[in-house]
């Protein structure tokens, strides 16, 4: 083996590192003290990741014939790829470049410059000893299946599906509900332009439903996900609709004839009715109705069958014998766009939802305003005939509240302003908005706020204490009284109103944890799916090939959801176009001569990559299935399994390095006085 010639590069990162770590001293120290470990050159530079910084490394690789590089800078999760690519361009194997994190792990978390400097030295020493044990490797190339699975057909999912399908690649669009469209299909108007939600959404729904490249799977849920990026096998349970999709024309006669009326708690938010055979709304996609077996007379008592009797198609479209179908599909990438759940307003009893008739949730109000909704767009109190004369709108219900959710739900301010406008427009009622802070960022939003202000809506800044029907003052009888502290004048206010609208916040789906587990991703502390990087990669996850879009990543309005859907699609398309993906060559392999055939490792692999060769009495590891976790490497009593990139030699060398300098408390001994 050729002698190691290591270059050490210490980054200032402006003052991010240099402010707390004496980078010049560190660099000088590495050049002198680590000479024995093979360091031939050590430099510091303002921004190592800049092209000048990279050229510095590349020039040294050529001129000083370096064969190993250590970059002490930020986290490897940020710039490992940058520096490896730079090394590769200078004809060095990229996997012989190591990064040492002296920013996230040193300068940003410690304050004492001397202490931080010593820690940086120790970590670099670990990096130098480790890099000497690195082996040249080749990236693993996996083919990418051009098909994509999109879970959730709200606006984000539909957008992503259309982007990919329009580019000519197959998409499986899976939706749990009987129709696609998501929450947006329930809304009437969309802020800030007030265009009708259905008018802008339904054309997209039709496109998605008719697209030759989109396979629509409604009433369907993901059961299992196997495989890895490029090659997922997904098991989907397609629920029985009891209507044959290949013959049904969607005429709707069955719905008309069905004698069973049930309260629609799903799409109509409990305000309206639907039949036991139903379609969420007239423009639903797919157009075929579905039978609700919990209420259908046939499923309950074995009789009725009115729908079947009146169905005009030949052969008959109604099929009571239909069963759930289990479908297995192969896809290369997956986009999760599973959306949100609305905060359950019953959790805040003092706002009276569920107890006081005329307290409505935001979704109920949306349905009420919708021309296709239960009141055909007219705003009524719960009795269904009286128009309200005064309306109170409460912001931040379940949001920005340490008892429920700490986060801001983003959409509620704008949604409440929209409600105020709609109430004014439809009833001319007096409107009171109770807000904590008015958050109207983004294009044209504040203009809308100004418009609503000019329309004469009253704004009261303060969190509402309660909404009650207990009248105390004259003029309060028969009204709902909203009590809040007006923080702008420093007084308690009691506002009697006819109707209260709770602008409920957005929450992660109730089963988001379960879904995350299925797809091998994780949730942040508030339950939304966690992204790869909060700013620079909000649509990727830590699991290769799984992307997230829309409100499942965090509260979001429609434009942001559409943007994320399109962004996720663009990322997937890039993957599909390049046909293959280079993965880090982190894999375990068995050194057969050393394997004793003890089979301890055999049960450890959750990816079934480990098999036992009975004939030779040795274990084999399938490189295509191995994900590189290294659990078997750690378990082998004979040291017969080696893990590339994280071998025992590499880890133990790094350990030696980081332990080679004592902890400096900043107040005692200097480095020289302590024997290593």
């Amino acid at each position: 083996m050729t002698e190691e010639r290591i270059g050490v590069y210490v980054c200032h990162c402006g003052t991010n590192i240099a402010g707390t770590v004496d980078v010049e001293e560190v660099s000088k120290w590495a050049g002198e003290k680590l000479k024995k470990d093979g360091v031939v050159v050590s430099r510091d530079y303002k921004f190592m990741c800049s092209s000048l910084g990279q050229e510095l490394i590349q020039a040294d690789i050529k001129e000083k014939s370096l064969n190993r590089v250590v970059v002490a800078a930020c986290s490897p999760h940020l710039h490992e790829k940058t520096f490896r690519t730079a090394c590769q361009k200078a004809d060095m194997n990229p996997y012989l470049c190591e990064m040492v994190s002296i920013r996230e792990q040193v300068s940003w978390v410690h304050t004492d410059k001397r202490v931080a400097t010593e820690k940086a030295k120790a970590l670099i020493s670990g990096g130098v000893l480790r890099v000497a044990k690195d082996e040249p490797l080749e990236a693993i190339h996996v083919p990418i299946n051009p098909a994509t699975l999109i879970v959730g057909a709200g606006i984000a999912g539909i957008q992503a599906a259309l982007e990919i399908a329009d580019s000519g690649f197959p998409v499986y669009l899976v939706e749990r509900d009987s129709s696609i469209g998501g929450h947006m299909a329930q809304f009437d108007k969309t802020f800030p332009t007030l265009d009708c939600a259905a008018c802008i959404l339904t054309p997209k729904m039709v496109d998605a439903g008719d697209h030759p490249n989109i396979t629509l799977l409604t009433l369907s849920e993901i059961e299992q996900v196997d495989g890895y990026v490029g090659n997922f096998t997904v098991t989907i349970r397609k629920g029985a609709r009891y209507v044959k999709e290949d013959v049904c024309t969607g005429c709707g006669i069955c719905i008309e004839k069905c004698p069973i009326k049930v309260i629609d708690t799903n799409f109509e938010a409990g305000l309206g009715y639907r039949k036991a055979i139903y379609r969420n709304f007239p423009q639903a996609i797919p157009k075929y109705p579905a039978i609700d077996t919990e209420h259908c007379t046939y499923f309950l008592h074995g009789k009725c069958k009115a729908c079947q009797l009146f169905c005009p198609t030949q052969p008959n479209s109604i099929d009571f014998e239909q069963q759930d179908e289990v479908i297995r599909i192969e896809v290369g990438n997956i986009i999760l766009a599973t959306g949100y759940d609305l905060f359950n307003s019953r959790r805040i009893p003092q706002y009276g939802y569920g107890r006081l008739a005329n307290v409505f949730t935001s979704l109920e109000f949306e349905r009420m305003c919708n021309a296709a909704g239960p009141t055909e767009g007219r705003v009524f109190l719960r009795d269904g005939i009286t128009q309200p004369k005064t309306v109170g709108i409460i912001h931040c219900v379940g949001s920005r509240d340490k008892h429920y959710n700490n986060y801001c739900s983003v959409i509620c301010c704008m949604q409440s302003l929209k409600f105020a406008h709609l109430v004014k427009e439809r009833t001319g009622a007096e409107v009171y908005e109770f807000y904590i802070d008015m958050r109207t960022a983004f294009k044209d939003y504040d203009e809308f706020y100004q418009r609503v202000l000019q329309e004469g809506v009253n704004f009261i800044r303060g969190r509402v204490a309660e909404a009650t029907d207990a009248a105390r003052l004259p003029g309060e009888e028969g009204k709902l009284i909203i009590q809040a502290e007006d923080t702008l004048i420093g007084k308690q206010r009691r506002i009697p109103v006819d109707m209260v609208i709770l602008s409920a916040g957005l929450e992660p789906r109730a089963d988001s944890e379960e879904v995350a587990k299925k797809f091998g991703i994780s949730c942040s502390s508030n339950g939304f799916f966690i992204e790869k990087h909060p700013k620079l990669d909000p649509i990727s996850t830590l699991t290769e090939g799984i992307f997230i879009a829309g409100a499942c990543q965090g509260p979001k309005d429609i434009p942001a959801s559409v943007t994320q859907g399109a962004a996720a699609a663009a990322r997937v398309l890039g993957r599909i176009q390049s046909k293959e993906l280079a993965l880090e060559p982190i894999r375990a392999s068995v050194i057969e001569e050393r394997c004793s055939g003890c089979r301890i490792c055999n049960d450890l692999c959750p990816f079934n990559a480990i098999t036992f060769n009975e004939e030779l009495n040795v274990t084999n590891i399938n490189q295509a299935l191995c994900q590189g976790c290294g659990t078997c490497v750690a378990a082998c009593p004979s040291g017969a399994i080696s893990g590339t990139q994280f071998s025992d030699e590499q880890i133990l060398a790094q350990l030696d390095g980081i332990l080679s300098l004592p902890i400096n408390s900043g107040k005692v001994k200097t480095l020289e006085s302590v024997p290593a």
Partner: protein
Amino acid sequence: MTDQTNFEPMVVGFTCNWCSYRAADLAGMSRIKYPPNIRLIRLMCSGRLDPTFVLKAFEGGADGVLISGCHPGECHYLEQNYKMLKRFLLLRKMLIQMGIEPDRLKLLWASAAEGARFAEEVTKMVETVRSLGPLNWSKVVDSNGGHATVIPVLAKEEVTA
């Protein structure tokens, strides 16, 4: 005996690439401070943790070792953190038999979102090890030819246990 007042514990942390290493990154990004006594080694998964690494760390001068992985059920490799958990429990028993206080080995579940928690737990760990004092591996293990030297405090604990 080393001067207690000047004792600065050395803690080695083995972190999972997907969760706790990122939690450490997040602590950094959020500029949350913690004692400089911890030095991290990144593994792809806590399941990669060979118990030898822990013993080598103690032998090499560490006064404490932190192992951190994804929360149960959140392992990037499905279930490998459970395998580490088994090793951890066994390792703790082994440390007791070797005469090393088991609190020198700490297990931390930390997700990528828990930067603040990571910093907090590291701080606690460093203080725990500081109160235990230096490990003095050579006294505990080497001098006895690798055999256990029962620590008095520990012996008492064992009786009550």
